[in-house]
């Protein structure tokens, strides 16, 4: 059974190192609003913190001689060196990139930039991205199947949607974001997609 915990709530009687929790004495205490189900703790809200090897979707916010500064929907901005890309970008361009390195103050260096165009960009809560992706990316493939779209899901909560029924894909993603903490979500989203896709 899962239940919502708030900061200061006791999660476990032993010391565990978890996201969204801290250790006080010999106990593990929640530090953010989260859902606890058995051994897992899933935060319900929070900003994206850059992690190595994450694929992210960013927006070019600054251009310099040596590279670009990229907004990542996070308190920290990404840096991209011109050496990493043969393409040149303009301010406002949407790019996907891989986080190669994160320094001691959480500032990421990006590599493998690719320009994304011809679609729409939406933003959701970064902590809900794993739900949108689903187990073995089952949720993403389901949305792609029903809405006939192509999705690029950045770990930072930005999703780029191309081709097909973009509106349906957006509606489904927003539904997942809203109900991310509930159980049996995959079935409900599938029913929703089936119904909505059937209408069109």
């Amino acid at each position, binding site marked *: 059974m899962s239940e*919502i915990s*708030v*900061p*200061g709530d006791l999660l476990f009687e032993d010391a565990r190192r978890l996201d*969204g929790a*801290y250790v*006080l004495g010999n106990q593990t*205490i929640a*530090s*953010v*609003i989260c859902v606890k189900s058995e051994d897992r703790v899933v*935060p*319900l*809200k*929070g*900003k994206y*913190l850059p992690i190595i090897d994450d694929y992210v979707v960013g927006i070019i916010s600054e251009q310099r001689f040596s590279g670009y500064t990229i907004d990542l929907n996070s*308190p*920290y*901005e990404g840096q991209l060196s011109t050496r990493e890309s043969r393409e040149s970008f303009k301010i406002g361009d949407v790019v996907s990139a891989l986080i190669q390195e994160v320094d*001691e*103050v*959480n*500032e990421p260096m990006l590599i493998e930039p690719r320009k994304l165009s011809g679609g729409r960009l939406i933003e959701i809560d970064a*902590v809900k991205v794993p739900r949108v992706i689903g187990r073995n990316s089952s949720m993403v493939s389901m949305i792609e199947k029903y809405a006939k779209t192509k999705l690029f899901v950045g770990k930072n909560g930005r999703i780029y949607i191309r081709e097909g029924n973009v509106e349906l894909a957006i509606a489904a993603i927003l539904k997942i974001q*809203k*109900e991310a*903490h*509930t159980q049996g979500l995959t079935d409900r989203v599938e029913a929703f997609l089936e119904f909505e896709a059937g209408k069109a």
Partner: protein
Amino acid sequence: MEKQILIKNGIRNDGRGILDLRPIKITAGVLKKADGSAMIEWGKNKILAAVYGPREAFPKHAANPNRANVNCKYSMAPFSSLEEHGRSGPNRRAIEIGKVAKHVFENVILTNQFPKTQIDISIEILQSDGGTRIAGITAAAVALADAGIPMKDLVQGVSVGKVDGQLVVDVDKIEDNLGTSDIPVIVSLRTNEILLFQLDGMLEKKEIETAIDYSFEAAKAVRALQIEALKNKYVVEESG
């Protein structure tokens, strides 16, 4: 002026007992654009708290490479009180309350997780009836939790006062103005720490000890309401 009697047979001027809180209603997530927000109705107090961040520190030279800066602004609307408040800008009192609230949150937010950023907290008093600083901080704690900012604990508090020679919990405006002293206390129930303690007037050592016991007792009731408010936000979404 004739001295007003505020407590008669253990009943206060608004019908409460000595240890009773005013009715409290908290709603989380009332502002769409803020990262986290909360509205509290504590008796006749009506307070809105909003949280933005963590976001890039501004100005840039203020950024601390070891932790996040916490900024807290307390402000009273010009129409918030019975008396004329005049212009609404920051005055001596508002700056002081903003400062003590900032110290409360610096001690509970895990600021070391967000170096070089800042977290902005706004507490806006829409209607005031005594005890706005503790109600404001209680609301801001809910707003911080709603924003998903990591904290050691959800803090809350109450003001204990001395009225007609007797200690009472949760003083309202009349009791504050006509009573002899008033102590706003903010506590963390997880660690049993006192995060804010101010004293207007004079009390004996023993009375202060009792006042602290009272405030920890009252904080438990307030915490239950805070948790309910945060959970309600997600329950509504589930059914809708």
